[in-house]
């Protein structure tokens, strides 16, 4: 088995050793996008939040949407990798590392967006200094920091065997500092029976913990909205709804990442159609759940037709017609059709569906945040159009693009340091791969 791991690592070595010209162009492009975002951020800090599209009625805009989105993707990564690990799913090895990377990277970016909404970043430490436990924001601060901590431990445990592999693999042509880096972070793991046993136990515990934490954290995030009295937010379904939507979006991001790395690093041998279908089926199940929750939420609002709920639904079906259709109809039905019907089930189709699902879920969050703020209890009476109707500015869009670029950049860099496919123990399951699919 050790030999197998060595051969595998040899195969993945070019990925770690060299970066192609296209790779450098890609990285440069991402840095440029991030650079524009930094410029936009400086504008926002120096000129005030007036440069954004947010105003007194719509106080939260696409920053919060991005925050919910990235956090969702992250929890999804945690839930998917945790569950796959706990159930010892046979086909997990080639994709689980990506899910773990998705978790950590989006977890690093997500909270950044909430900082962009904060009017006085210079007083951010007050959250710790004067934190009040009554406030859902404090719950969120505690929950997210716990989550970051838990996910880092989980990822680290999952990486340890491969880090040791890379340290021990002498043929790897890497600069000295990187070899030293692997040596330090591998923590002297040599794969003795005792070490293996302990590592397995720890990983199992963390996998279970990460699932629990992810559910709690995302519910807390949903409660930020549902504890308020605003029409459309004040809903008991929001906790589970957000969790389902999060895992749903995460499964789509995972499919996209699989497609991307399969192409770039030529992993056709390891990531096969089976994997796409397997994750696709997860996506399909979640699509059904997501559709059910969405329907349930809007049906009760519409049927009872309380005045403000009715106004909100009118707004959704007029001003927000297309986003509503894309997010809550196409975003639900497309995976059911494409993955549900066998003849549509190709890698390309599943990937396109995943892209649509990602867009649909981003829009879903937009439709949760913005229309509610645009239809408060007291009608907005303002002659200034930008104070009554939210429209995001270039600053907000550049920072959104910068976040996505940072996600891609960190993913690319991570894949240069650590093989994107789990090497340790990868071979042992190849025989049983046909079990599920």
């Amino acid at each position, binding site marked *: 088995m050790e030999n197998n791991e060595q051969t595998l690592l040899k195969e993945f070595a070019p990925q770690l050793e060299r970066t192609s010209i296209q790779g450098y162009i890609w990285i440069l492009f991402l840095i440029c996008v991030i650079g524009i975002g930094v410029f936009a951020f400086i504008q926002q800090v120096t000129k005030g939040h007036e440069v954004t599209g947010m105003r007194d009625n719509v106080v939260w805009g696409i920053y919060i949407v991005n925050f919910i989105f990235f956090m969702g993707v992250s929890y999804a990564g945690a839930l998917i990798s945790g569950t796959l690990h706990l159930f010892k799913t046979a086909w997990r090895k080639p994709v689980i590392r990506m899910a773990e990377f998705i978790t950590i990277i989006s977890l690093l970016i997500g909270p950044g967006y909430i900082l962009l909404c904060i*009017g006085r970043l210079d007083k951010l430490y007050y959250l710790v200094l004067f934190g009040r436990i009554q406030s859902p924001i404090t719950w969120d601060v505690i929950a997210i920091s716990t989550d970051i901590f838990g996910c880092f431990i989980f990822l680290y445990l999952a990486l340890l065997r491969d880090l040791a592999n890379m340290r021990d693999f002498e043929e790897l042509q890497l600069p000295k500092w990187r070899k030293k880096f692997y040596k330090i972070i591998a923590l002297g793991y040599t794969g003795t029976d005792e070490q293996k046993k302990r590592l397995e136990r720890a990983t199992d515990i963390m996998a279970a913990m990460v699932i629990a934490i992810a559910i709690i954290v995302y519910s807390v995030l949903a409660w930020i909205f549902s504890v308020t009295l605003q029409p459309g937010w004040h809903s008991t379904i929001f906790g589970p709804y957000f969790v389902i939507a999060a895992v749903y979006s995460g499964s789509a991001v995972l499919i996209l990442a699989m497609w991307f790395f399969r192409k770039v690093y030529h992993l056709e041998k390891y990531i096969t159609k089976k994997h796409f279908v397997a994750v696709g089926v997860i996506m399909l199940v979640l699509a059904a759940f997501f559709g059910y929750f969405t329907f349930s939420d809007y049906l009760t609002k519409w049927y009872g037709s309380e005045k403000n709920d009715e106004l909100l639904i009118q707004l959704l079906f007029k001003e927000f017609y297309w986003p509503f259709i894309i997010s809550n109809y196409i975003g639900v039905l497309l995976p059911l059709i494409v993955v549900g019907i066998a003849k549509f089930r190709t890698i390309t189709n599943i990937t396109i569906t995943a892209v649509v699902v990602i867009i649909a879920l981003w829009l879903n969050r937009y439709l949760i945040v913005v229309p509610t703020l645009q239809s408060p209890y007291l009608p907005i*009476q303002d002659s200034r159009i930008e104070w009554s109707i939210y429209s995001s500015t270039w600053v907000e869009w550049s920072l959104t693009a910068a976040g996505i670029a940072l996600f891609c950049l960190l993913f690319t860099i991570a894949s240069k340091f650590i093989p994107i496919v789990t090497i340790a123990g990868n071979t042992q399951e190849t025989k049983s791969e046909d079990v599920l699919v």
Partner: protein
Amino acid sequence: MEEQGTNKNSRRQFLKKGLLAGAGVAVGGGILTVNAGKPAGESGEKVKVMTTKGEIMEVDKAMLKLPRVSIAESHHGIPGKKFVMVIDLGKCKNARKCVEGCQRGHHLPKSQEFMKVYLLQDAEKTSPYWFPKPCFHCDNPLCVSVCPVGATFKRTDGIVLIDNNRCIGCKFCMTGCPYSTRVFAWKHYPEFDEDKEPYSPEASSPGKEGTVSKCDFCPDLIRVGKVPYCVSACPMGVIYFGDVDEDTVTNGTETFQFSELIRDRAGYRYLEVLGTRPCVYYLPPVERQFPVDRGFNDLDVSVKNRYINTPYAKKHKL
């Protein structure tokens, strides 16, 4: 403390006198309590000022500059008080003097209104009315519950204040408030610089970029025995201010027993169903002193445009 004691005594005296003379005693130009004897901190130097009724009167110079309490002190309410506001919708004609008076008093830019005037119409067939809306200073304030740093707080006298030195600008309170009361400083407005005094949450001034602010019931004015800016600025006497425990409210010209006023005029609180328990009461828009249309007179185009999308304005092509 000494000054507060004086106010308290004089208010009792005033109440006695008021009760003897019956409800409806005229009090000079928006002065909440008449100070009997020489109040503490009087300089002796007199200056002439014009009251809201256009009369010239002499006041002590020290009275013009409002003393400001420190941030720590502002967390404690004025002892023995529980403030309340009553707004008579039958008298409002959207003169907007309350808005302007408030903005001047708090050094606010045009784009920030602590007091807003809405044109509301509850149902298609019901009559529209002008609806001045300050902060409701709820007894169950969601904005206070959700604040992560304790920047907004409820005092013993019922007032909900914001300390903008503490506020981190997360705007959660703005989404928490179901009445769209709170405003955010989206940039540094030049008006903030007009105020050279040190900041006090009781004055809500000077404002600060990136923080939330709102109507504060003007505790700095109350401390010197005056009524809030909106009350004294209103030419129609729409807004009454007072104390629940003393059971009096005044608009500067008329004084009523609060409980009687609410009973006789069917006072109510806006959106009672939300359970926020506001400290602002409304008297229904009956026995109107002005037709609703009058509210459209003499308005800036930008202000008038606020109401053009209301069902009433659309119907009557105003």
